């Protein structure tokens, strides 16, 4: 009997959350100032290893702001701690932090600052162009953006989510170590969830 009550309550809660989630994904994000939610944001990279496979890693410390405006004057700023690189292998992470790659103690952050955000006719951002500073080098980078959803969360806040992808050449940022073994093209994916302030 007791179990049955708990099951009913659990199912009801699941339905409420699911309904909430449905409403979140239905609309175009409202204009305003958003802060990136690190707990629901993922920055992932993929690089060829010896030409035989693609190695995937991520950065665990990310922060940033999104200023969403209707007139196309939106701004995005993302900061990533390079020492939070995580490739699911402790020894490799140490190597990635070393001067061979990110040189994380010399260059502790990589930063992206947008200078142009393009919107579709619904007012959703579809591409972001800006400056990426990494390993002491700043280069222009364009990210393709796919809006995922926006809406009220179950706690009364307002959230918006975006997936953004780009490919950079590590050699363009002065990361030239082992060009034969490790690919030059790095695919980057950002799965961002931001909370309206």
């Amino acid at each position, binding site marked *: 009997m007791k179990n049955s009550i708990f099951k009913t309550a659990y199912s009801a809660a699941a339905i409420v959350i699911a309904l909430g989630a449905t409403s979140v994904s239905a609309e175009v994000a409202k204009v305003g100032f958003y802060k990136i939610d690190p707990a629901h944001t993922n920055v992932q990279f993929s690089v060829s290893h010896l030409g035989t496979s693609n190695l995937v890693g991520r950065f665990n410390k990310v922060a940033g702001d999104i200023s969403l405006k209707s007139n196309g004057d939106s701004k995005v700023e993302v900061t990533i701690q390079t020492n939070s690189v995580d490739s699911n292998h402790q020894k490799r992470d140490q190597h990635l932090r070393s*001067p061979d790659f990110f040189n994380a103690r010399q260059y502790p952050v990589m930063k992206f600052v947008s200078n142009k955000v393009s919107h579709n006719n619904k007012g959703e951002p579809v591409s972001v162009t800006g400056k990426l500073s990494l390993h002491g080098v700043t280069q222009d980078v364009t990210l393709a953006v796919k809006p995922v959803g926006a809406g009220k969360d179950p706690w009364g806040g307002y959230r918006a989510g975006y997936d953004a992808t780009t490919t950079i050449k590590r050699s363009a940022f002065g990361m030239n170590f082992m060009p034969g073994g490790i690919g030059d093209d790095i695919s980057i994916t950002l799965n961002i969830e931001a909370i309206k302030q």
Partner: protein
Amino acid sequence: MEALIQMILPSVVLPLLLSVLLWWISRYYSVALWALPLIWLPSLIWLIGWPSLVPAEANEWLMWLVIIATLINFMYKSKPRVLLASHTFLLLLAVIAIAWPVMKYQFDMTLVIELLVVITVAIVLYLFSVSNLITTPTLSMAISSAGMGIVIALGGSLLVGQLAASLASVLAVFAISEVIRKRQQSSLGTLKLIPVMQIYLAILVIARIFAEIPAGPSALLLVAPLAGLIPATRYASAFSAVSVTAAISWLLLTADSSSYY
């Protein structure tokens, strides 16, 4: 295979060839021996690229360190006190420059203490070098540098490990020459090796700070050239070899042994 060749060319082949060339020239013009540290520069430039005039990264300071240390050595070779003070001051500046990117974000007292220990060891090394009493200093430095290359490559950074390996390769021919001469007075002499010691200590500091080489193996690598220089015996180099072997063993026993490279 191609990747392996790319690693060996700048860290072993090029410095060895230049070392043989300098050794051959020095048979006719002994003054050329003062240029020994400079033949390490092509390897450095091959590995890290042409350094900026105002260095942005720790590795880039090494070029200026080598050039200035060689000049100091040549200018003050007959003034031991000035030589000693100048080299110590130069290493102090180099160490501060190398550590600055880290220290400017967060002051780290442990790091400061470690750097002071490095400077203290350097002063002892230079004092013994000025006395020029040691019979196999080049062999000792070559063993220490080779060991440091292995430790850094296994422990944190292939690039910094290659810098140390190329230093060992530069010294290799002269070290063999020392052994063949049956440990008579080295043709190089410890005085000419002071800039090499500067490079050695600077690479060690870079490895400790930026490649996260653990404190234990780093301490043994710091002691390695010292161990080879202090006891003025025929077996001085063996002390370096023991320190280096202990550093490699320590790293292998304590570090993650799963295959990575």
